[in-house]
């Protein structure tokens, strides 16, 4: 009998243990086991409501504006019927210990039940402009002048479909924020003036960037720069000597000369002095210099003696933006096509012949050909050459220069008071266990 009593005592003990353990081992309710991810639902709801910036617009309106009613209708309409919500708008404060203050709250229930979750969403006012202030090239050193050739008395070649003036205008819009001063060189006389070392509007001549918007052609000033021994090689009956002089000037002033498309310096143009000439393809006011033009320029740039001879270009076909250029596409928000066709790529051998360093590859090198790059002479002066086929995409020129100079962008803070509001959507689920 004693053992039976002992067993009963054991049973009572185990029963007590089971009951106590069952009491503490509370299993979660089915809703907690398989919950709808309310946090994600809240976030995606806010994103849907802000698809066309309607939410961003509404939260900055006065609290009695009818837009709030529409927002509440839209919110109710897009959530499942068993979901209750509380939408709270906070002002972003600054200068104190409190970071946010409630400005408005809308809800469709007194409380959100036993379990809820929320997501926050920062919206910016459409009335506030978030400035991106670029660092000016030359701000922390010399230079900072951008010359864009916009000569009314010259014609372009291989800029098919555009005029040099239109390209100049687009380049001005793209690049002028990055330079201390941007000067449109309106005619060849003004070009001659800066070649002579005289500024046009008091700008800094040294260390400037000169963009030739005329494609394979370069405007040539009348007079001194077209004369024998300076611009005209009488023995070869060629204006290659002008390109040589140009190269010397680029070296002298430490300019960066930018060629936007094709074979650089293949023609010279002046619609007045060369009006009776044509470039071999029926364009008047233009004379073909052919391949010696580039060689002469590079000789001048490297301070070598002038020697008439041919330069070389290659045709590597489809070429791709370098990883550096792709990175700066995102940084500066310039998005040309990442692949282009190159038929006038410069030979990589020029780097050793003319003491050039490639400071920026705009396109990846293909074998011995460089489709687009910025070259800098070991002493002074530089050349940006895009050996692409026509028609030019001037965004590539802008991208190449920005990749090389890399001016920083200073962006406005999104959390500045009055510019942003924090929207918090808290969701709760009704019904179910």
């Amino acid at each position: 009998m004693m053992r039976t009593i002992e067993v009963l005592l054991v049973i009572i003990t185990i029963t007590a243990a089971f009951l106590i353990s069952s009491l503490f081992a509370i299993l979660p309710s089915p809703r907690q086991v398989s919950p709808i991810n309310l946090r994600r639902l809240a976030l995606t709801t806010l994103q849907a409501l802000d698809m066309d910036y309607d939410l961003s617009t509404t939260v900055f309106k006065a609290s009695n504006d009818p837009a709030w009613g529409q927002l509440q209708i839209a919110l109710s309409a897009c959530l499942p019927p068993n979901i209750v919500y509380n939408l709270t708008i906070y002002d972003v404060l600054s200068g104190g210990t409190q970071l946010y203050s409630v400005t408005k709250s809308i809800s469709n229930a007194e409380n959100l039940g036993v379990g809820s979750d929320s997501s926050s969403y920062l919206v910016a006012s459409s009335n506030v402009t978030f400035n991106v202030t670029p660092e000016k090239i030359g701000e922390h050193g010399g230079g900072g002048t951008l010359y864009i050739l916009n000569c009314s008395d010259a014609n372009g070649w291989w800029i098919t479909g555009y005029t040099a003036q239109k390209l100049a205008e687009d380049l001005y819009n793209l690049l002028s924020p990055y330079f201390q001063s941007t000067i449109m060189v309106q005619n060849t006389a003004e070009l001659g003036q800066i070649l002579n070392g005289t500024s046009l509007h008091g700008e800094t001549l040294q260390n400037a960037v000169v963009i030739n918007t005329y494609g394979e052609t370069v405007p040539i000033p009348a007079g001194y720069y077209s004369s024998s021994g300076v611009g005209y090689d009488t023995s070869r009956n060629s204006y290659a000597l002008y390109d040589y002089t140009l190269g010397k000037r680029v070296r002298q002033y430490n300019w960066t000369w930018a060629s936007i498309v094709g074979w650089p310096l293949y023609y010279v143009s002046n619609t007045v002095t060369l009006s009776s000439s044509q470039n071999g393809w029926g364009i008047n006011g233009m004379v073909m210099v052919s391949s010696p033009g580039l060689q002469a320029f590079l000789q001048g740039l490297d301070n070598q003696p002038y020697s008439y001879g041919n330069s070389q270009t290659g045709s590597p076909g489809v070429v791709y933006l370098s990883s550096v250029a792709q990175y700066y596409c995102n940084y500066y928000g310039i998005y040309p096509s990442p692949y282009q066709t190159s038929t006038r790529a410069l030979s990589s051998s020029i780097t050793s012949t003319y003491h050039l360093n490639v400071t920026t590859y705009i396109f990846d090198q293909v074998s011995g050909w460089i489709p687009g790059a910025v070259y800098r002479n070991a002493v002074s002066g530089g050349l940006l050459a895009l050996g692409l086929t026509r028609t030019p995409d001037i965004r590539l020129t802008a991208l190449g220069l920005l990749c090389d100079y890399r001016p920083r962008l200073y962006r406005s803070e999104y959390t500045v008071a009055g510019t942003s509001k924090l929207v918090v959507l808290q969701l709760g689920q009704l019904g179910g266990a």
Partner: protein
Amino acid sequence: MAGSTIDHLVSVTVFLAAILLFISLFNQTIQTAITYQRHRYLATKCSDLLDNMLLNPGNPIEWGKGNTTPTSFGLQDPEFTQYRLSPFSLMRLNYSAGQPVFYSKTGQYYSNITMGFGKSLLVPFNEVINYSTAAKLLGTNGTYGFGLTITPIITVSISEAQSNPLQLAVTVMGAGFPLANANISYCFLTVKATGGEGAYPSYTVDYGTNVTDDQGSAILSFPSFDGTQESYVLIVYAHLSGLVGVGYHDHVRYDASYVVPFIDDFDSRRVLIAHSWDVHGGDNPAEISYNATFVLLTEDFTLREMPLGTGAVGKINYGLGKPYNNITISTYNPGLLVITYRKSAQESGVVLMPWGISSMAFPISFGTDPIQREWVTTDVRQVIVSGIAYQAKLALWSLEGYQVMG
């Protein structure tokens, strides 16, 4: 001695019985807890899987615009971030809720989304992504089953309130609430079947706006239009605070023979124009002429026509020896293919096909049915498909067959 032995036997028997009972009770508690843990894991898996589908575009990222089978599955629009889905990737999903259509002249079955007469999207089976392919790409094959439904949040219902002069009642509803004071932009397209025998139909387009009342309803009146005498289609865009929905209503005067558009090739954007008798059969078939137009939805909710080129007008006949026609859509921008057709000046109609699932707010149902499954977990996201608000819901269950206890 005997009493002691009996006492011993009784106590041991009772003790063993009690131990077995308690082992069973404790075991049940533990089993239930394990099952709950598995269900909890399933819910987490469901949320992850849904995000995995919606937040990556797949590979190649533009697989929705071509014929290739993706090597990874994702529905995000590659031109956007967050929960914005590609209207073309969605078009390439096999619509599980629709009855496949067989077209004998191509010898192919087609995935079928049909939203009433003349509003269908038919995609060949050899170009759709089926469930088993998606399951393999998502790594759920054999372990989890799923069903993905993507439905428009805003429902725009249109009915004819009066035929002559025509009045159409528009009701705009959200998922749980009528859309009061919603702006309505509509496009009213009427078929002009005028001309002699064999002439091609033409159409006119009128635009207008309205606002819904507190019940989400509005009446659109067309005072000089007799709804009994002409075929027409009304396309309505309703928008309020970022939510945009689409609805449509048509009335055709002749449906014994009509045009059935099939997607033929995504790479070349080719669409086949078939005769309805070759697809659905019917009585009294006849040759019909048609006039196809492609229209894009602009940001101000008006429609802009795009040229279709060769094959935009033509005639189509039924039966053997009468080939289908084809047209090429010139863009990958979502829009509507509107095909007006006529047999005679009194017998005309219009059919629509979306190019990009969102342009007609077609729903998507992809995957298998969870019926008879022991535990199904769901999760929901709000998504945008080319400007139209949708709700994506994923139902997920385990295929490993454990029981629900407790």
